[in-house]
């Protein structure tokens, strides 16, 4: 590693604003300097020449890299992978890389192709075109039982006819390991996942969380280069899911194995991952850190899918760099950030998160006033070791008068359902439970406000 300034994710390209372009262009950046020790094979870097993944570029054959240190290559690299089922394109030209020890998530709605992508990495499906390489080794034509990856299935797929120890020993036995070594390894891994002494139990005797840990132990004991997880928390109840999220993240940090996790649950992806790819209709919309996904969505889909959001439709009245002024269909004028490529007069959807909207901003801590100028929006990975610098204060200039329709009480996640004046548009406003807003009743007219940089505009209808 050369420091946090280097993005661990390449192959998706990106512009200076930190917005990563969708991989549709097949753009990829040049890798850091690397000298091949063997000139006889094409290394992945060559496949990325001229900023494009060169079609047909294949990483070296098996064995060539065995003498090289493994961290030269990312644990997993996927290049321009396409998979079609008859007329339906499940995975459409997806490229990404995951470096060693990362927790990488693929987040998307059901049917977006994420499971197909995972099954291709595991070897259960083969891509129609594109390259999947693990630690620099091309996986084309290699059966699942010969790949250095293991998959944790959605319903875990523990073998019900075998005890916990036999389940974990299954893979080791297939490698022909001696009985004594197997017993020792099984014991070690059971301790590591916090289940010492559970070897003799049957999977049916375990609780949901324990089964989860056995499934992880069964894969980790084989020391895979990449551990693939197919929504393993989906079947758990809420409380346990919250707990397993933290446990998985801790475990991953401890063992240092590269995790590729797919989920439709944004909270799972955001909490656990180092990087998240948002997938929609077979394509990656954005690959970024969880915080950047939330703060700087690259597309309307990402803005709508990650976190909750309100949408206002309107027309761009002014554009200056990545900032602009929107006149909504109701006639209100708001300042917001603007996605690249939008010009004055364009029809836009403005996305604003309920938690970014302040109730009664002039009475609260928010200071009114125009921003002195539009501060550049720092990408998170450009600020080593810390949060992105806050935009200058005094930028909270947007105001709207809304009528409270209903109070949706949900503890910490409570919200107000409101309508802007003269409109049936629904606008959600976060309702902090700090007793300051206890006086608000349905039917009240309140003023809300938000920061100039909290809203973001995309071309109208592009997220649907």
């Amino acid at each position, binding site marked *: 590693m050369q420091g946090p300034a280097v993005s661990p994710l390449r192959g998706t390209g990106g512009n200076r604003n930190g917005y990563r372009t969708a991989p549709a262009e097949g753009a990829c950046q040049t890798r850091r300097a690397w000298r091949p020790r063997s000139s006889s094979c094409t290394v992945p870097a060559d496949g990325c020449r001229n900023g494009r993944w060169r079609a047909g570029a294949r990483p070296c054959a098996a064995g060539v890299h065995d003498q090289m240190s493994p961290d030269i290559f990312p644990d997993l690299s996927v290049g321009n992978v396409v998979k079609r089922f008859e007329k339906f394109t499940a995975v459409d030209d997806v490229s990404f890389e995951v470096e060693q020890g990362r927790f990488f998530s693929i987040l998307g709605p059901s049917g977006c192709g994420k499971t197909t992508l995972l099954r291709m990495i*595991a*070897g*259960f499906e083969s891509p129609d075109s594109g390259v999947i390489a693990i630690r620099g080794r091309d996986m084309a034509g290699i*059966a*699942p*039982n*010969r790949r250095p990856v*293991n*998959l944790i*299935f*959605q*319903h875990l*797929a523990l*073998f*019900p*006819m075998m005890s916990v120890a036999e389940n974990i020993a*299954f*893979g080791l036995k*297939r*490698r022909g390991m001696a009985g004594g070594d197997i017993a020792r390894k099984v014991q070690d891994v059971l301790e590591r996942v916090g289940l010492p002494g559970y070897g003799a139990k049957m999977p049916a005797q375990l609780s949901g969380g324990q089964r989860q840990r056995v499934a992880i132990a*069964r*894969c980790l004991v*084989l020391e895979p280069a990449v551990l693939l997880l197919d929504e393993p928390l989906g079947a758990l109840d809420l409380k346990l899911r919250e707990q397993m999220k933290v446990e998985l993240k801790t475990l991953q940090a401890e063992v240092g194995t590269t995790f590729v996790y797919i989920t439709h649950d944004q909270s799972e992806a955001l909490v656990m991952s180092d990087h998240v790819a948002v997938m929609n209709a077979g394509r990656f919309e954005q690959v970024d850190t969880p915080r950047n996904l939330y703060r700087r969505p690259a597309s309307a889909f990402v803005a709508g899918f990650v976190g909750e959001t309100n949408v206002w439709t309107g027309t761009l009245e002014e554009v200056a760099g990545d900032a602009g002024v929107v006149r909504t269909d109701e006639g209100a004028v708001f300042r917001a950030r603007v996605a690249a490529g939008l010009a004055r007069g364009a029809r836009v959807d403005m996305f604003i998160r309920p938690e970014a909207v302040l109730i009664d901003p002039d009475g609260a801590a928010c200071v009114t006033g125009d921003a002195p100028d539009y501060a550049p929006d720092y990408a998170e990975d450009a600020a080593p070791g810390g949060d992105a610098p806050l935009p200058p204060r005094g930028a909270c200039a947007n105001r709207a008068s809304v009528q409270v329709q209903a109070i949706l009480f949900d503890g910490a996640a409570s919200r107000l359902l409101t309508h802007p004046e003269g409109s049936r548009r629904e606008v959600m406003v976060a309702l902090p439970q700090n007793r300051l807003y206890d006086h608000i009743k349905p039917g009240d007219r309140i003023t809300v406000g938000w920061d100039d940089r909290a809203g973001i505009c995309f071309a109208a209808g592009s997220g649907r």
Partner: protein
Amino acid sequence: MSAVAASKAGPGLRLTLALFLTPVVLWLGLLIVLPHIDLLIMSFRMDPSFGDEGWSFENYRQFFAEPIYWLTFVRTAGYSVLVTLLTFLVSLPVAFYVTKVVARNTSRFLLTMLLLPFWVSELVRVYGWMILLRESGVLNHWLTGLGITAAPVEMLYNDATMIMGLVYTSMLFMVVPLVSVLESLDDSLIEAAYDLGAGPWTIMRTIVVPHCMPGIMSGAIVVFMLTLGNYLTPNLMGGKNSLWFTEQIYNQFIASFNWNQGAAFGFLLLALSSCIIWLGLRLTGQKLSRVVQ
């Protein structure tokens, strides 16, 4: 809940229960239990034409004294076990293909195709085989026509043909329970084993077969009993060269009119099938109650 209902409903419910049970009890009592008791008594008595009306083990002694009887008995037992094994070996790939390999619609179609021949009586199916295999049959016609064999070969009336016929006759009774247990096998278990480094054979041995064990055993019991008690197929396809124990029983009852000897043979066959099934369950560690589910 049902206990409360029963105590409240009282005589009405008891009458319903009696109405439902009567046919079953009559069926079992008149057609199964009563004849068996009669046969059991008969097997311990001598042929009345000999005049001796007392109890005796003579019929059973006769069985061990005459090698043709007990050799046929052992042969029948051995071949029945072999037929059961072969049926399993043929049916497992078929059932696996139908449930796990092909698409759902194709799988239903294939199952129907498997069932279809069994709408025709066993007799007709065996005659079908005979038309194919006999000396002047279809197969021989082709073989001589193509010049592969100079003269027609008699393919009927030997042990191999008989066993093939028995496997064919009993295959469905193995495929159906196998299909039902394989349908309950989660595909992800197979994939998980594959992912953890197992090859196809290991997956079969460690995942598929252990999961299917109840289905295998219930199929095996049915196939074994049907084969052991089969008369038609061994008689028609095995001919006189391939004796089956049921033919011995038939001979005693019909040819020799020695019902007492026949009854003794019948009970020996019942004892044999019970012993072998018990042994099979013991060896595979299965329980009869689980297998018959």
